[in-house]
Structure formats: structure tokens, C-alpha cells
């Protein structure tokens, strides 16, 4: 069942680099990461690649296969034409460290800028009561394995490095949505307005909902439909809907 396939793997560092050519054996059931490991073990021992679990659970081996952001461990060779050259490059949106490894510190910086969960003061550990229907929306977002492929594919920063300052990317806008939908988050009582934060601090308005983040998500999280658009609507309640405050006067329950 084994066959030979041609690969071009980007090799280099922040100073520059190029696609290096390799021919490698491919066996049944293998994924691109297996081939990269084979190259390491046989042809290029210092080929740098980040990986951990090799089961699509840790989100470490993000790169681009034939120009498409992918997890290397979840890209099966059988989905690629054996006659075509497979081009493997590091993620485009982040600076390269070496070969397929990128500096993803942008994401950790943005993560720190999202105000953390605020526990309700009146509840002690063990007293939290939440209904399954109320936690499900946030649970979907917590499936995120932080592979940063959505950040990589998002054209707002992929095509415009200069937007990194003002835009936190789908991953962290989704984190804001997760907290805003958390049934017991007490941020509002502390004066933290997550909706305003999404718009003003994390650049929700930059998103033009072109859905590449959703398409690329290996966890199949509906980032756009379930996090970004609902957040845009929540911001619209506050910022763009003159009737919403009036409606609230009539009944607080409308939006609780």
C-alpha cells in the first residue's frame, strides 16, 4: 500500500527561507504529520515542527497544507492526490521562528486582554447551580483547542498585520462571547461591560463575517454564527438600537 509522494516543505527562519523538496514514502492511514516525522527521522533531523498529541486535541501542529490552514495531524494523506506535490508551509499570519514553527505570542497577548471570568460574590464553591441549556452555548466555545487556525485564516490580520493592534481575532472574540453567555459571570456587577469590550477593545467591528474562521475550525465550532454574529447583535442592542433601552424600561426580563 505504500507509495512515494513529492513534498515541498518550507525551511528557514525569520531571516528568510525557501521550499525544500523531498520525496517520502506514504503508507495507508497516514496523516501529513507522519510524513513530516518521517522526514525528520530519515532526511532532515532538524526540521522544526510543533506537535504534541497527534490526535487533534491539543492544537499544536497548525500549519498550511497546499495553502490551506490545517492541523497536520488531522490532514490525512488519502485526501490528497498521490500524484500532486504537497506543499507544507508555516502559518502565514504569524512570524516564523523556524521551518514550520511560528511565533504565536500574539494570541497569548490577546488572551490576557480579555477580562477573566468574575465569580459571583454571593456563591461559595459547591453552590453553583446552572442549567444544562444555559451552559451549552459557552460549552461549545470551550471546545476550542487553541490551534489558532482561525486566527491564521482571518484576513483581518492575515492580510493586514497593522490590524493586530486593534483586533483580537475570532478566537478571543469568541472568548468574550463565551464569558458574556456564561450564566454566572458577574462581570457586569464589577463594572466590566463585555459587549462594549468586544467592540472597543477587541475589534468586533473589524470582522466582516466572511466565515473563514468557521470553515477552518477543526473542532467544528460555529464561530461566526454562534459567537461573532450574536456578539454583533448584542453590541447592536447597546450601540445601534435606539429602541432597546426603551424596551428595557418596560421590562428588564427582556434581556436578562
Amino acid at each position: 500500500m505504500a507509495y512515494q509522494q513529492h513534498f515541498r516543505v518550507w525551511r528557514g527562519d525569520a531571516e528568510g527561507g525557501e521550499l525544500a523538496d523531498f520525496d517520502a514514502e506514504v503508507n495507508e492511514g497516514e496523516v501529513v504529520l507522519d510524513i513530516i516525522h518521517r522526514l525528520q527521522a530519515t532526511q532532515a533531523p532538524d526540521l522544526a515542527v510543533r506537535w504534541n498529541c497527534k490526535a487533534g486535541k491539543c492544537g499544536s501542529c497548525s500549519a498550511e497544507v497546499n495553502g490551506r490552514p490545517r492541523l497536520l495531524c488531522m490532514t490525512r494523506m488519502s485526501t490528497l492526490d498521490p500524484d500532486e506535490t504537497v506543499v507544507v508551509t508555516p502559518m502565514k499570519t504569524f512570524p516564523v521562528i523556524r521551518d514550520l514553527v511560528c511565533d504565536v505570542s500574539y494570541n497569548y497577548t490577546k488572551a490576557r486582554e480579555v477580562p477573566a471570568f468574575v465569580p459571583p460574590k454571593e456563591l461559595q464553591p459547591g453552590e453553583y447551580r446552572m442549567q444544562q441549556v444555559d451552559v451549552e452555548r459557552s460549552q461549545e466555545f470551550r471546545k476550542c483547542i487553541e490551534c489558532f487556525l482561525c486566527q491564521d485564516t482571518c484576513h483581518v490580520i492575515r492580510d493586514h498585520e497593522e490590524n493586530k493592534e486593534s483586533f483580537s481575532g475570532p478566537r478571543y472574540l469568541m472568548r468574550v462571547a463565551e464569558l458574556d453567555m456564561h450564566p454566572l459571570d458577574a462581570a457586569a456587577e464589577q463594572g466590566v461591560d463585555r459587549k462594549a469590550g468586544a467592540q472597543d477593545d477587541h475589534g468586533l467591528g473589524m470582522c466582516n463575517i466572511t466565515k473563514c474562521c468557521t470553515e477552518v475550525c477543526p473542532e467544528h465550532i460555529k464561530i461566526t454564527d454562534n459567537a461573532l454574529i450574536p456578539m454583533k447583535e448584542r453590541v447592536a442592542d447597546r450601540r445601534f438600537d435606539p429602541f432597546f433601552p426603551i424596551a428595557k424600561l418596560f421590562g428588564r426580563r427582556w434581556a436578562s
Partner: protein
Amino acid sequence: MTEIERHGYDVVVIGAGGAGLRAAIEARELGKRTAIISKSLFGKAHTVMAEGGIAASMGNINSRDNWQVHFRDTMRGGKFLNNWRMAELHAREAPQRVWELETYGALFDRTEEGKISQRNFGGHEYPRLAHVGDRTGLELIRTLQQKIVSLQQEDYAQYGDYEANLKVYAECTVTEILRDGGAIAGAFAYWRETGRFVVFETPTVVLATGGIGKSFKVTSNSWEYTGDGHALALRTGASLINMEFVQFHPTGMVWPPSVKGILVTESVRGDGGVLRNSEGKRFMFDYIPEVFTSQYADSEDEADRWYEDADNNRRPPELLPRDEVARAINSEVKADRGSPHGGVFLDVSDRMPAEVITKRLPSMYHQFMELADVDITVGPMEVGPTCHYVMGGVQVDPDTAASSVPGLFAAGEVAGGMHGSNRLGGNSLSDLLVFGRRAGTGVASYVDSLTARPAINGHDVESAAAAAVNPFGDGTESARENPYTVQQDLQQTMNDLVGIIRKADEMELALKKLDELRSRADTVVVEGHRQFNPGWHLALDLRNMLAVSECVTKAALQRTESRGGHTRDDFPAMDPHWRQVVLVCTAGSDGVEVACEQQPAMRDDLLELFERTELEKYYTDVELPEESL
């Protein structure tokens, strides 16, 4: 030598998995300046692979559950070899640790009343595992990661610096722990990204490096599991216990080859999945050991009724402790009743509707669909044993997680004793939380007790640096070994000779091979430079893998009985005399030395939790209390 980057901390935690992060949170909350050093990126720890849940006797589903029942289950699972004090602390404190996670923002699945839902798992008498679908480990890591971020935000608000008191050094590997006299003085590490060295000046080190699975060929463990903490502890003068006990998880994927070993969560069985052989038979009924006959059903009817009415029926034998199930699968395959790719069949497709499967086991559905092209809602999975967990680890004080070396602490998988000879599913995540936190408090009080800070010896730093660059060679080597080849040979050796079923002659052969591998590892030469060079990283990890492999093999050779995660073909029975013995590995002048130590005796009130008839199966007559009790 160029100036080496230096940082000073009160506490350095090695490892950013559940135990490391929980320890760091505790230390930081107790006012200690803390560093977390992680081989991987922050949030990628192997903990994310844990699927089933966190065992804690909250009693949300069955109110009869309490810490005593949990303690009992843990001791039974470990075949009474557990350090009883650790098992006690673990069972008592786990609920509090889980509830605490909710205050950090965790979102577990809920019961009707809005409490944390709990699921059944192998070896646990009641539904006990707090879970989020089948991605509980991810939830745990993300929650702790976000708690750390929130502590950093507090520091930012106060000092204008996120990292004032708590910093994560991601993609940084510790190669040596430095001492001043006998006590911890610091740690020597390199940045994976640049290859540059960094020295941490610290009076304390918490080892939270996880396990050793990468020494075996078929494993559910990631590349990080090279036994760094175990080896560092040995080299620092601490001792390892129970190293002969390696858990082979009964259900790993067996096909395709590239994913062989990847875990199939036990919740598949907890939620109703059954094991069948090639003849379609639910074979686990044939493998119920005598010690468990009172708790496990002997007919399919009773087993199936248990899912609906757990109080009046005995449990299905698919939920026996992991060692039993793994051995059973192994026997079926050896008897030629295996699946086409050398495993057995695990089936949920005919046990529940497709939408229930995709809801309860989303990541399993996903994993088989994407990696093996198998739809688990319509057909069975093929599964077989995979190296999953090491029960052995650093010998620590149960209450403080302190090792015998002043300033050196260990928590989580790298610590030994808690799980005895076999760990129950779900007890790992709770172990991380309970003993992670205890290590945090232990380390903080150790720092408080210091009158003077130990100092790093400059010579130690130089020799650590020299050892670290050694694999690059000087170009004069006659023999040049490839680190990848040595690793593969090591994995094959351990898998074949010290695997799930062990024999004296095979292990003696393994020791010989390990000797050869060690000399080959000395001649490993890596190409390229120090910037993110995986060949070099592996070369440095190799000696750790070799050290722990030697511990496992030597201890396994010495223990002439079968118990939990240690099965001897030549000594198939469990021997009560061996229950009293803990095998302790230390670094000697000529490799690892193994010594016998007496197991501490269980406190009377805990011993009374068990029926005498049960204790008789594990204890020698002399040890048992008077008949009147």
C-alpha cells in the same frame, strides 16, 4: 561562555499540565513569586488528552457516595498498594477541588437540578466523574490556564506588569536541577525556540512533568512524556517508587498504524459500550477475577439492567479496573479471537441511538471519523491496550508533596504512591488538582521556613551547559547515532520486553539492551544548530527515557508477583507478602538501584472501611486485625 539569562523566583514549577498549573496558582495565591516552565506552549499540556472526567465523590447523582466510598474504590483499584494517606487526602479533597474550578469559570455538564453531572467509570462504585462531554481534560487545562491569566491580570492592575508574580516560560526545557549542599538552589534550562540557556535561581522546584509513556512504542502519550521529572528527581537524589507499575489502557486505537495507541476513552464503556471478540461474544464475563465477583455482573441481562438501575444490579464487567480489561483483551487477541488489526471490537452503535452517541461522545465520534474513517454510530471500533500512565513516581510526603530532597516537590503523574499498582480512570485529574494544590501549599511553607537562600554554584551551571551541547559533538566522532533511531529501538525494546505481560528472561534481555542503548545514546550526534532543533531536543530527552526505562525494568524484574499494572507471566498470582513492599529506585554509582521498603500501615479507622473478607484477599493473616473487629 556568553552571559546566561537568569531569573529569580520563590517557586519554579516544571510542567504546565493540571498539577503544575494548580500548584502554581496556589503558590502565587500564597504570595510566592512563581515561574511555570513548560516544554510546550501554554495550554497544550497532555492533560488535554484526558477525556472521561474528574473523580470526586460529590454525590450529585447518587447521594450515597462519599469520600470513604471513593477511598475504598481507589484502594481496591490499586490492589491495596496505594499510599493510604494519599488515597485518603485525594478522596477527601477532590470535591472541593472540583467546585473550586467552577469559581475559575469551568462549565461542567449539569444535572437536572443544575449541579455538576457525574458519570460512571471503571472501578467507581457510583457515578462519580465530573465531566464535559468527553473533553474534560481540555476543560481542566483551559480553566486553570484562564485562572492563571486572571491572576496575571490582577498583577497587571496592581503593578502594571502581567508577569510580576507569575510567569509562564513556554517551550522551555529543564535539563538539570541545581543544588546547594543537599537543597534545591535552581534549575538549568534551554529555550526550545532559540536554544539559548536560562538559569532559574530558586529554592524550590515542583516537578509536575507527567509520565513516561514515550518509552513505549504503543502509547497514548505525547512526545513530552519522556520521564523528565522522574529522571531529574533521580539525578537530584530523590527516590522513585512503584516504577514497575505501568498502566496499559485497555482501549487504544489499533488502526491505522499511524494512530495506533491513541486513546479511546473509557466513557465509551461507562456509557454502555461493550467489548466483543471476533466471535461476537462479550468476553469480559469470562475475566472477572475472584476479588471482584461480588461487584460485577455475571450475565448480560444483569449487566444491561445496571445502566438503568445501578442499586439493584451488579456492574457490567467492561467496567472492571483497567488492568483487568487490558489483560483480558490481550488474552483474547493471543487466543486468535481478535479483530482484523489485532485488537477487539468496542461497540456502541447497537447500544444507543446515533444522536446520543454524537452528543455523549463527540470527540470519539470525531476522532474515528477523521482518523480511521470509521463511523462509530453504525459500526464497532477496533481497540487494543496502549501504554497510558505510570503509577510510579517520586516518593513524596503525602501532605506536602515534598520529596526527600529539601526544596524538591512533585505532584501529579510524576509523583508515586497515590494509585498503588493501578490507577482508576478519573482519579488522575482529581490527583492533579488535590496534590497540585498541596504541592503549592507545601512549597510555600518551605519557602517561608528558609532562613537563607541557597546559592547556585557556577561550576554546576557550566557543566550543565556542557552536557546540553554535548549532542552536537565536535566533528571527531567515529560512530554517529541518529537520536530518532535510538528512540525507536528503545520504544520497541520496552514494548516487547517490559510491556503488558512480563517474564524474567525477557526483562533481563531488556536490561542488556538498555545498556547497549545507553552507550549508543552517548554517541548520538545531531545536525544543525540550536534554534528549534527537534533532533537535539530528542537527544537530550533520550537519557531521561533511558533512566526511567531502567527503573521500570529493574523494579519489574524484582517484583515476583502480578498486581495491577504489573503482570508476570512467570508469577501470575498476587502475593500478599508483596503488598507490604514498596520498591524504591535511586540513582547509584552504577545505574539505578532498587531497594525494598516497608509499606506504611493503614490507619485503623480506614482499615475498618473494608470487610474483613475483602482484606483477606490482599493481606497476610499476620497483618489482619483481630477477628473480633
